[in-house]
């Protein structure tokens, strides 16, 4: 596949001067550039995006995500390296597109559209379609200052995607919208992607990235920390959120398993069985009662311990997750070297498909405080619909149906 965007040796530095005079002195050659402080926001980034690829970019605030998008969009120039973009690019950086608050939505669409390089005639022809997609009704003829941020986003997105671009860049913007519009925008993005648009998406929404993107990039401290399939990159990112830096990833049945934590306590064995103490099973029928038994061992004495698990579908979306903090089953204090068994019994009310279980052994309510062990893909199992009525979806919510004739 031909490449759509290629970044070679990209670096972006911002200079900070102690005072305006320091800059003046440097400009006039009276001081060396050492007087200013150079902050590298991105450094040594080499990336290649293929045509039709959808890439999600994740990372903490300040990791350089927005700067990367701005470099690709061409609104800021790299300090070193080069950016090459093939074809027409449409970028939705932050909110707006530079709308003027005193002008109506329609007037702003015209100006912003022209600013994107769409000729006036073409823009007027596109107007009804843009209006219909934004669905902001009579607000289109009211000044933008009375718009909610969601409405501004609707307008901006509708315009930015009015024509299919070769490259579409979306920075967070979609998170402002309501669920309805998000769904609608994702549908449009998918449609463009299928037609060959390269998509670059920055989002903190795991669901958004996993459902649309076929590749994810984790930026950390101005560099690419991970680049791969969304599930493994997001698992790694999630693990890196906790204070510990002990993260390992290895292959498990063709998928990447991420394990992180300080190792003060860990899950020795995880067994899914039909009865307590039964043998480990890999296939469960919808609605069947099962027991998930985790054996935890400690390396050091711990005041308090929380065990949690999450059941995820094939896309890595949580179906259900809970921990002993929320169930009100405190564990501890425990001595070093002790083993604890936690058994959780529940009906498997899931639809047919492959699921995975992630486990966590932590010190508090979340894994962010102190993470002993976080293990994605700790167990993979399959649910089959053995004896229930045929249904679609991930969750078994069988109804009782009554039908009556009214008059």
């Amino acid at each position, binding site marked *: 596949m031909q490449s759509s965007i290629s970044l070679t040796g990209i670096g972006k530095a*911002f*200079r900070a001067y102690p005072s*305006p005079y320091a*800059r*003046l002195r440097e400009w006039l050659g009276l001081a060396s550039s050492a007087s200013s402080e150079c902050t590298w926001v991105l450094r040594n980034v080499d990336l290649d995006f293929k045509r039709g690829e959808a890439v999600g970019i994740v990372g903490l605030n300040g990791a350089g995500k927005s700067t990367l998008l701005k470099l690709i*969009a*061409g*609104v*800021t*120039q790299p300090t070193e390296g080069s950016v090459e973009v093939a074809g027409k*690019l449409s*970028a939705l*950086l*932050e909110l*707006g*597109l*530079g709308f*003027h608050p*005193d*002008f109506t939505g329609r*007037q702003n669409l*015209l*100006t*912003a559209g*022209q*600013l*994107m*390089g769409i*000729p*006036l005639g073409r823009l007027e022809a596109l107007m009804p379609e843009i209006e219909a997609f934004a669905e902001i009704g009579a607000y289109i003829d009211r000044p933008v200052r009375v718009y909610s941020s969601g409405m501004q986003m609707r307008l901006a997105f509708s315009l930015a995607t009015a024509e299919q671009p070769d490259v579409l860049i979306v920075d967070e913007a979609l998170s402002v919208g309501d669920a309805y519009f998000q769904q609608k925008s994702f549908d449009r993005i998918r449609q463009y992607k299928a037609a060959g648009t390269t998509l670059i998406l920055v989002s903190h929404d795991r669901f958004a990235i996993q459902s649309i993107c076929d590749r994810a990039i984790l930026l950390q401290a101005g560099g690419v920390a991970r680049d791969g399939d969304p599930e493994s990159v997001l698992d790694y990112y999630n693990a890196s959120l906790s204070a510990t830096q002990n993260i390992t990833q290895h292959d498990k049945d063709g998928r990447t398993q991420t394990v992180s934590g300080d190792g003060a306590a860990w899950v020795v064995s995880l067994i899914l069985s039909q009865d307590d103490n039964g043998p480990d099973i890999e296939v469960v029928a919808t609605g069947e009662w099962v027991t998930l038994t985790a054996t935890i061992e400690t390396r050091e004495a711990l005041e308090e311990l929380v065990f949690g698990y999450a059941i995820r579908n094939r896309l890595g979306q949580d179906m259900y997750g809970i921990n002993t903090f929320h169930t009100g089953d405190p564990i501890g204090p425990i001595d070093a070297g002790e083993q604890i068994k936690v058994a959780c019994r529940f009906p498997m009310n899931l639809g047919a498909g492959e699921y995975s279980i992630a486990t966590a052994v932590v010190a508090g309510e979340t894994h962010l405080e102190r993470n002993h062990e976080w293990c994605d893909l700790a167990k993979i199992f399959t649910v089959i619909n053995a004896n229930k009525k045929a249904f679609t979806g991930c969750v078994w919510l069988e109804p009782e149906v009554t039908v009556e004739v009214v008059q």
Partner: protein
Amino acid sequence: MVRQHVTAIYDYKDFIFASIRREFEVTYLNSALGAIWTIIHPLALITIYAVVFSKIMQARLPAFDGPYAYSVYLCTGILLWTLFSEIALKAQVVFIEQANLLKKVNFPRLCLPIVVVGNGLIRFGIIAAIFAGFLALTGLLPGLVALALLPIIALTAWFAIALGLWLGILNVFFRDVGHFFSVVLQFWFWLTPIVYPASVLPDRAQELIAFNPLATLVMAAQTVVLQQTWPDWRALAWVLAIAVVLSAVTVRLYLRRGPEMQDEL
């Protein structure tokens, strides 16, 4: 490269026209009189100077014969000065004012100065048309020599935008530049023979004034409108040379500091 820029600008012609119109609308958006304010401002200025200098102070202003001569002299100078100062002042803040767009959208940056000049020329055109009407009514309209005004106006706009953009780039980094320039403009106005004729100045000052490009431009326009003769082309050629050099300096500064400016906004 030049050709590339020209095509880029051509592609954005709709945007440029719309921006000029929008700028115009914004200025008068919530005012009842609207565009009439464009005329009221310079008219007020001209009335004040005409009354204060020729009537109240009875200034010794030689060589004006006819009842309207001084007013015409004043109008010519103020019109051209307003064209210069409006373009230069606007260009000086254009990057700061458009920071929102510059940070979000990638478009040919050359559009911005074109919009600034376009706006300046339109306002100028409105007032100039009224002024021309006044001249026609009083029978003072110059004939064929009026054509000489076109290069004078073009040169004024060119000098203004080159200077304004140079200051505009510096202004992003050093905000003092903006304040400094507004002060300089006040002195500059009085160092240009607009309200008074150059002939009232001592000989030494008259020599120095030749170094003021605005004085050359204004005096050339006054020659055309009042004496109704062709201006001193040699002096204007000198202003042209200054404008060319200034443009080169501005372009160089933009090429060197443009990317950094983008980050500073």
